[in-house]
């Protein structure tokens, strides 16, 4: 195929060179089991602890507050299930309707297990209101779980204000930080967080590894059983090369965040503005809200998003018509319907998510192709016999 352009960094990111180098070195040289007593094990342990400190640095916490997991989904499960399961008496959880399935479906499972869940709605801006959070509090509320940044819209949730509310009320506060980590500064202290989930492959690390921040003094019940790894919170031999990759990715993100953030938001605005100006019937979802710098979600009146994604892919441009996890599903994005789009309009939307290697030239090429494809799709009236 001709040149390909990747505009789907919210689905996953390529492994950065620095991450790759660190992982290869680990795979080659440090194969020991981090729990072993001997030198091989100690070497592996040292790498794991170094990575723990690197992740801690990204989140502004101590290395000891980090638990390594298999990824964002496991981290969310561990934070929520590990806090709410097994608690006796009335239990109440507050979350939103725009969470990723890694939180959404955990909350639904808890509902089936007898936990009361309040599902907070968002407005057209894709942002939950702290007042709504405050209003949903009850004496039996145990946890608030609200994402830091939405995966489809990029909208940042007011987790600082929500953190203050949670502290004041003495309620646990968990955030799914998978789309925020590495893209915006996160300081778990300042944000008043008890838990934060992140995933390595969204920040130029490898797939299959993630972390959960757990505030000192909070604890979770493990959700699987085995050895005593990760301070008895997450059994299983450590994925040392993966953890090393996550550590390297966290370090890289911390070092490049301010410049990269400014660069990406410039490119993102160029994309959004360009599309709005060049393509008639184009609109931006939550386009004026505070967002992660790399994400734009655009709708194209009268165009089938699924067809647009395929047509663009055949021309070498990788974009997404919603969360990657739900592609193939017939339901339109729950996030887009949550911000008030009709099913029809929700199916006409694409998510563009930019990354490290995205350039202004790539954005301009995308705009050119996008405008041409959208125009062609709109001209496709019901076919006439070709007789040719």
């Amino acid at each position, binding site marked *: 195929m001709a040149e390909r352009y990747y505009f789907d960094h919210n689905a996953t990111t390529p492994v950065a060179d620095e991450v790759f180098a660190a992982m290869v070195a680990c795979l080659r040289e440090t194969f020991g089991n981090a729990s072993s007593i001997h030198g091989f094990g100690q070497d592996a342990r040292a790498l794991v602890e170094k990575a723990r400190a690197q992740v801690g640095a990204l989140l502004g916490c101590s290395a000891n507050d980090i638990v390594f997991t298999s990824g964002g989904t496991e981290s969310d499960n561990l934070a929520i299930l590990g806090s709410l399961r097994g608690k006796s008496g009335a239990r109440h959880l507050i979350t939103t309707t725009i969470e990723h399935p890694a939180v959404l479906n955990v909350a639904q499972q808890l509902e089936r297990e007898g936990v009361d869940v309040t599902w907070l709605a968002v407005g057209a801006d894709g942002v939950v209101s702290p007042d709504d959070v405050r209003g949903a509090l009850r004496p039996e509320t145990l946890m608030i779980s609200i994402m830091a940044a939405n995966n489809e819209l990029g909208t940042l949730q007011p987790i600082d204000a929500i953190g203050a509310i949670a502290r004041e009320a003495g309620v646990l506060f968990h955030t799914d930080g998978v789309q925020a980590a590495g893209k915006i500064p996160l300081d778990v202290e300042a944000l008043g967080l008890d838990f934060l989930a992140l995933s390595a492959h969204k920040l130029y690390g490898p797939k299959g590894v993630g972390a959960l921040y757990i505030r000192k003094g909070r604890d979770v019940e493990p959700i699987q059983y085995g050895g005593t790894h990760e301070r008895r919170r997450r059994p299983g031999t450590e994925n040392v090369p993966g953890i090393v990759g996550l550590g390297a990715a966290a370090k890289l993100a911390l070092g490049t965040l301010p410049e990269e953030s400014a660069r990406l938001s410039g490119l993102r605005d160029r994309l959004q503005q360009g599309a709005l100006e060049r393509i008639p019937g184009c609109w931006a979802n939550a386009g004026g809200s505070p967002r992660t710098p790399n994400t734009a979600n655009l709708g194209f009146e009268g165009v089938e998003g699924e067809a647009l994604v395929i047509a663009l892919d055949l021309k070498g441009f990788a974009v997404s018509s919603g969360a990657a996890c739900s592609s193939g599903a017939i339901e339109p994005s729950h996030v887009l319907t949550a911000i008030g789009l009709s099913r029809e309009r929700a199916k006409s939307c694409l998510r563009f998510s930019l990354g490290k290697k995205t350039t202004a030239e790539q954005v301009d090429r995308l705009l050119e192709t996008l405008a041409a494809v959208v125009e062609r799709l709109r001209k496709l009236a019901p076919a006439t*016999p070709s007789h040719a």
Partner: protein
Amino acid sequence: MHDDLIAVAMSGGVDSSAVAAMLHAEGRPVVGMTMQLWNQRRMPELIPEGGATGRCCSLDDVYDARAVAAAIGIPFYVVNFEEQFERDVVRPFVEDYVAGRTPIPCTLCNNSVKFEPFLEMARQVGSETVATGHYARIERDERTGRWLLLRGVDHSRDQSYFLWGLTQRQLSHSLFPLGGLQKSEVRAIARRLNVPVADKGESREICFVPNGDYGRFVERYLEENRIDRRDLAGEVVDERGRALAEHQGVHRFTVGQRKGLGVAVGSPLYVTEILPAERKVVVGPREALERKRFLVERPNWIAFEALTEPVRVEAKIRHQFRPAPAEVRPGAEPGFCEVEFDQPQLAITPGQAAVFYQEELVVGGAWIAAPGGHQSQVG
């Protein structure tokens, strides 16, 4: 023209896989697409033991189609038509059974999914031509300019019976590369081109009822949709209206059926008619199944624009039926035609299609109407 992108509808089976491999080997630009039509997990109890492999829309088949596309080296996408499929195929299928008819979902699917939204999706992604693994041929009549449908050369595999509903527009945008081949040749080609599923078995059942229990499917669907499940049970009666037995629902019967009538009489009895309004299933001796004349509705003509005078044809009234000489003529009412076989035929079944042939050519086809009734409303 040969540089134009072709969208191959890939089911994960050997036939459509061979089509993709053949076109690609010819150097034509190809994109593979699998239609996701039905969620097999929705009614898990209808999956036979050992899984539903070999039925369309099982995860295994999507997996196979993707593997074939990867092996050939063509782009591949899964496109979702579950909504259309349920609306235009599954629901009418259930409604037909409830109304005492015996539907052909494959024809409904061809008419309303495979060659309509799929064709539309193909055009949207930049392909004006859709290729499928059907055993049938498309030719252009240079004299009239019409697109003609012909039987597959391999008569034992011929699928033209399911394709009579295709419009001129649909035919003009479709390719059936297997129409001129024997099945054995297709397998050989698939092997030669290293298609991973060259030796895969075949699906025989309706794709969304993998275990073949249509009655159970209808009941589950009615329950699931909370459709007012009118009491479908009633009586099995003889031709004079005398009750012979009770039955559990008209949807469990089809004209010509002999087994499962719950009637113990000396001579074999067959379902001759289903009267859904009275929830009666009429049975009679084999001779009572014989008829020469019947009405068909909503015809689609392929060889010509409209039927204006009687035409001699060979009519086929179900998939496993040897076409028999008949005359088809315009009916008294618009939208209807009358068919008269030269010799009486057994079990002319409402809901099935009558397809009219002249040797290899598919002249056209229509839905078999309930005797005397014009109330039929499929789709």
